[in-house]
């Protein structure tokens, strides 16, 4: 049957088989032992022609409640932010999205330069010296930071605060098990890492301490105090950070972090049911040669023109194989590009304004909920998320909210039994005053 992606005609086929010197395509498969040759039809769903397929996929998509037609107060690691239209126009340029890793720098200068610019923007936001070209996502970047720390310090224990995203902690556990590292979780008190408990856990076997800033509850961890405790024991200080928040908050790099990781999803990347997003990985100069993944560096060509290449590749799997600093190969380059475009579009002023609007709108929402008689827990400063206590279940509340076109917050009872009936509420710049007021009315009225 003819197919629009398959240009080989019957005549082509005949000529090609002649050149090869066989009579049929079947002969080219003769090296597959007969006993494992697949006979019959693959049990794959049937072919749909383009118009049918569009209709079918549209129907599937329409079965999902989306965050464009509904006002979302759900965050917990993935946020509903404004995405400038230019982002999609840039990443839809096929020179970018149909290319692969820039192995041939002479015809990949566009991608290489875009990554170089991305690395620069991440350094600027995090206050770190070196950033790589991207990781799969924030949580796997955090797990790799744990492996780097263990390798660097030759110690076997990772301490993670319970105020780090629960799914990130789950990912860390899996990676650590692979490397025979132990993971110890430290409780949170009043929504931030319990410093006394942390001190008790610190010892000479501690490779690193991982905290999140702003943390899973939206609270700002006391990084200066944490840094002191961590470095007293010559452990590495690893901070997972929402890069948008760093548009307004003091960056971890200015507070002694050794490794800063996170996810760029807030910059130009739609939620897409959780992926692909875009991890970033930033370190101090000292750790430059230990970084996982690809790095782009500036250099010159034979005639002195400025250009960019993949560099310090002796760290990577294709050179070092089992001794590589990581097994990562494909990364999230296109999303790193999307984030770069979003950061450039917002620019210096816009990133700051957007970050500030998040704080201000979250502050407004929290105050209004308190005025409506709701209990908010944790009294520290926060970025764009905070925790409220409901009288009933979060699930029921969310059902009720959905009827008003609102996607409610995250049910903290799923991960923290002591916080059942507590909702984590995210308020981004995308939420209007009217939407916030409706949310307050619905949630507050039920109490």
């Amino acid at each position: 049957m003819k197919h629009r992606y398959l240009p080989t005609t019957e005549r082509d086929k005949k000529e090609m088989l002649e050149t090869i010197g066989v009579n049929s395509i079947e002969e080219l498969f003769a090296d597959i032992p007969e006993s494992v040759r697949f006979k019959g039809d693959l049990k794959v769903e049937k072919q749909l022609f383009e118009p049918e397929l569009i209709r079918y996929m549209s129907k599937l998509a329409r079965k999902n409640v989306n965050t464009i037609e509904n006002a979302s107060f759900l965050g917990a690691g993935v946020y509903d932010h404004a995405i400038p239209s230019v982002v999609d126009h840039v990443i839809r340029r096929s020179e970018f999205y149909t290319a692969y890793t820039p192995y041939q720098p002479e015809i990949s200068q566009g991608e290489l330069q875009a990554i170089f610019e991305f690395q620069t923007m991440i350094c600027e936001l995090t206050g770190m010296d070196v950033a790589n070209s991207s990781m799969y996502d924030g949580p796997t970047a955090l797990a790799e930071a744990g492996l780097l720390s263990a390798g660097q310090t030759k110690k076997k224990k990772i301490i993670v605060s319970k105020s780090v995203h629960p799914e990130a902690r789950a990912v860390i556990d899996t990676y650590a098990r692979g490397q025979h590292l132990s993971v110890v979780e430290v409780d949170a008190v009043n929504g931030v890492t319990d410093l006394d408990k942390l001190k008790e856990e610190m010892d000479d076997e501690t490779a690193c301490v991982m905290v999140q800033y702003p943390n899973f509850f939206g609270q700002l961890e006391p990084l200066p105090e944490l840094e002191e405790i961590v470095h007293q024991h010559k452990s590495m200080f690893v901070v997972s950070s929402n890069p948008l928040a760093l548009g307004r908050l003091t960056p971890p790099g200015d507070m002694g972090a050794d490794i800063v990781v996170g996810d760029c999803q807030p910059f130009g990347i739609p939620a897409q049911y959780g992926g692909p997003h875009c991890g970033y990985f930033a370190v101090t100069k000292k750790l430059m040669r230990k970084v996982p993944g690809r790095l782009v560096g500036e250099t010159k060509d034979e005639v002195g023109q400025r250009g960019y290449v993949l560099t310090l590749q002796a760290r990577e799997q294709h050179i070092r194989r089992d001794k590589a600093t990581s097994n990562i190969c494909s990364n999230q380059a296109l999303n790193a590009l999307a984030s770069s475009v979003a950061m450039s579009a917002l620019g210096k002023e816009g990133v700051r304004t957007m970050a500030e609007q998040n704080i201000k709108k979250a502050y407004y929402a929290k105050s209004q909920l308190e005025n409506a008689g709701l209990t908010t827990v944790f009294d520290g400063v926060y970025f764009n998320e905070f925790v409220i206590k409901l009288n009933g279940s979060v699930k029921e509340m969310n059902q009720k909210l959905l009827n008003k076109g609102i996607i409610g917050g995250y049910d903290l009872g799923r991960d923290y039994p002591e916080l059942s009936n507590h909702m984590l509420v995210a308020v981004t710049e995308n939420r209007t005053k009217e939407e916030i007021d409706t949310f307050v009315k619905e949630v507050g009225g039920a109490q």
Partner: protein
Amino acid sequence: MNTNQDQSLIFELSEPGRISYSLPELDVPDLDLNEWLPEEFNRQKEPELPEVSELQLMRHYTALSKRNHGVDSGFYPLGSCTMKYNPKINEDVARYPGFSSIHPLQEEETVQGALEMMYNLQENLVAVTGMDEVTLQPAAGAHGEWTGLMMIRAFHEANGDFNRTKVIVPDSAHGTNPASATVAGFEAVTVKSNEKGIVDLEDLKRVVDKDTAALMLTNPNTLGLFEEDIIEMAEIIHSAGGKLYYDGANMNAIMGAARPGDMGFDVVHLNLHKTFTGPHGGGGPGSGPVGVKADLVPYLPKPVLVKEDAAYRFDYDRPDSIGRVKPYYGNFGINVRAYTYIRTMGPDGLKQVSENAVLNANYMMRRLQDAFVLPYTQHCKHEFVISGKKQKKLGVRTLDMAKRLLDFGYHPPTIYFPINVEECMMIEPTETESKETLDEFCDRLLQIAKEAEENPEVVQEAPHTTVIKRLDETTAARKPILRYQKA
């Protein structure tokens, strides 16, 4: 502003006061953040991000895109990467709000369409691979490899088998295979290839023992050759108590012709960004689903997507699971594209894909075999390897020939991989290329082989037509400049 001929960085276009966004004015009461934020959190030194207008931004990135070669720009026979055409309908579908704008922590009842898509994709991948179950959680091939190895480890440990510390990989294996073995806590042991380019059974028998956790194999292998002793190999590994791991990077060769599950493989990963048209994105994102046989199902990453009556939900109650390998449920956006592609092709279409991919590769191999050294002469599958040994004697390296191809608008093949073939060039045309394209490319490569004999400088000094000449990689690594710094 950059005043010489160099392509400007976006930072060099920046002028204070320019913007290219349109955030609405704050519509809630203002808050003085300098007052509200404690001093230690109140950022003093602002990040130096660019300040450009929207048109400046578009011109900048358009200029960058023109300095980049993609599949839509021209032929891209980068072996092992399956640089096939990226269908445009996939891009449209992935952007439907019901796919692009849904939050991973929404209540399951509100995302039934997404779950249905994922479930169907899993079922289709089960059918293509002949495995029993598939997880969509891994983000890429390497991530899938590590996930699969972690499951194999969990399986051995559940059997009280704690001493299986070794993973065997062929010398022709991709670098991620040994690297993933290390990350999963194993020691990578190399098995040699024989003169036919496939795993040497005698050497395999030598390295396999009671410590063997698994053998990782790409089949067809990275030389584009089918491991025809696969049944014996499976027998050797299984009788030693090990598991067989299938690196599915080369699935494009055998859809509908053979299935890893039928060859005795216990675990498989697929690269949906290769065989199943996920665009390569300049390096990613990909998607690396993993399929397993029944005895490994308990160890799948959690949560596991299940269908009950007509509804879909995630099962978190998986006591033997290796845990999470990724937040949420994998690279959903890439999975939507792969599913759209599978539905575009259907079962017959997928089979034709592999047939044509193999036809194209064999055709090119035969057209090029006399001018170069063909280390393995049997029919290949979807890709093949030639060596530039002859040209090297003339002072022209494979790297030079690759650079010369740039002058003709081609992305060169993969070079110097696999590492067991000297001066190698690994060519993968894919099924989406026409015979004319293959012929033109072969003509050029034959011309270059002739140039190597008659006029080697033109090859040695290539490229001549690109926006930039060969770059000084040594200095780049010795004195790394990894970010822009204002002069």
